[in-house]
């Protein structure tokens, strides 16, 4: 690792306006940009070759994705089993939420967007109700089983008819339950 000088914060320009200051750091990242010959590619500065290289690198890595998905599902199942054995309390709910939340963020990248939707619905169910004892356990359990089934059946993409129907039903029932219990629909983007 190359040694770097500490950022010289005292060199930043500072302007005071009433009770706030506007600071322009001298050491900004524009020094890492340079102009190259060639026409404007029409992408607003985006370098299509860099994106292609990154996508190709991700495609090479994708041979690992099914194995990683299996590990995430095993973690979710383990968190579900612990909650089933000990009851859904703050700790077991946090572990189950963490596993579901990770699948929500990763599953589409791994090729399982329907599993990501189920994990999103499970995350909303687990975090949308204050008292863990009030979380409908049977419904939470069905979410876990749905994710397991989607991965077991390798239902990749969005067009698996049975999986798509299952996901729609789970999302609809979860929304209804959250309205029934909390009086409000789940927060959505």
């Amino acid at each position: 690792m190359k040694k770097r000088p500490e950022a010289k914060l005292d060199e930043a320009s500072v302007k005071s306006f009433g009770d706030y200051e506007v600071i322009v750091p001298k050491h900004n990242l524009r020094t890492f940009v340079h102009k190259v010959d060639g026409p404007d590619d029409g992408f607003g500065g985006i370098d299509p070759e860099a994106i292609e290289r990154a996508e190709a690198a991700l495609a090479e890595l994708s041979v690992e994705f099914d194995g990683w998905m299996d590990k995430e599902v095993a973690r979710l199942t383990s968190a579900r089993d612990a909650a089933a054995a000990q009851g859904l309390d703050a700790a077991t709910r946090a572990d189950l939420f963490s596993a579901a939340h990770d699948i929500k963020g990763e599953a589409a990248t791994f090729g399982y967007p329907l599993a990501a939707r189920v994990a999103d619905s499970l995350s909303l169910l687990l975090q949308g109700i204050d008292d863990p004892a009030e979380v409908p356990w049977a419904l939470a359990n069905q979410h876990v089983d749905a994710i397991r089934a989607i991965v077991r059946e390798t239902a990749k993409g969005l067009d698996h008819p049975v999986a798509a129907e299952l996901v729609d039903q789970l999302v609809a029932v979860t929304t209804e339950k959250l309205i029934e219990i909390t009086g409000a629909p789940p927060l959505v983007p």
Partner: protein
Amino acid sequence: MIRIDFNRLRFLVIDDNAHMRRIVRTLLHGFGAREVYEAEDGAAGLEGFTHYMPDIVITDWSMPIFDGLELTSMIRQPGANANPYVAIIMLTGHSEKKRVLESRDAGVTEFLAKPISAKALYQRILNVVVNPRPFIKTKTFFGPDRRRNHGSSYVGPERRKSDKSETIRVQPLLDKTKSSV
């Protein structure tokens, strides 16, 4: 056209999920980055931040020890020895609007919702590199200017309380429509 010198930029990726760290690292290397460091929780991330002095921090939100939001607040300490102006990209499975606003108010530079894509990550990096925003320091906030639009066409009330403000009332478009009928 422009190119980013990824081979000169130093990244720190903080995520408790090893798979996600691997994916982000792969994308960054694909862009051309050479120096990509990793940490698996907020505490290790803070240590890595002071040790590696990265140019860009890419952090998850939900993590053990302390989370990405707390980490951001710790980095954004004016007067700290390390670089409080570092670009911070929050990469998270949380995507609700209130989370975006919360992270912005903690001093995050860019917000990126999972699932991640090469193009979306590149765009966030491009934004922090090419369009660095000034920093604002008030009693309750220190971070990149939360106003991205500084166009002169804005005619509403001044919302930064300490500015001299003037409210210009504008006739709602609906009323205009009615009066012209």
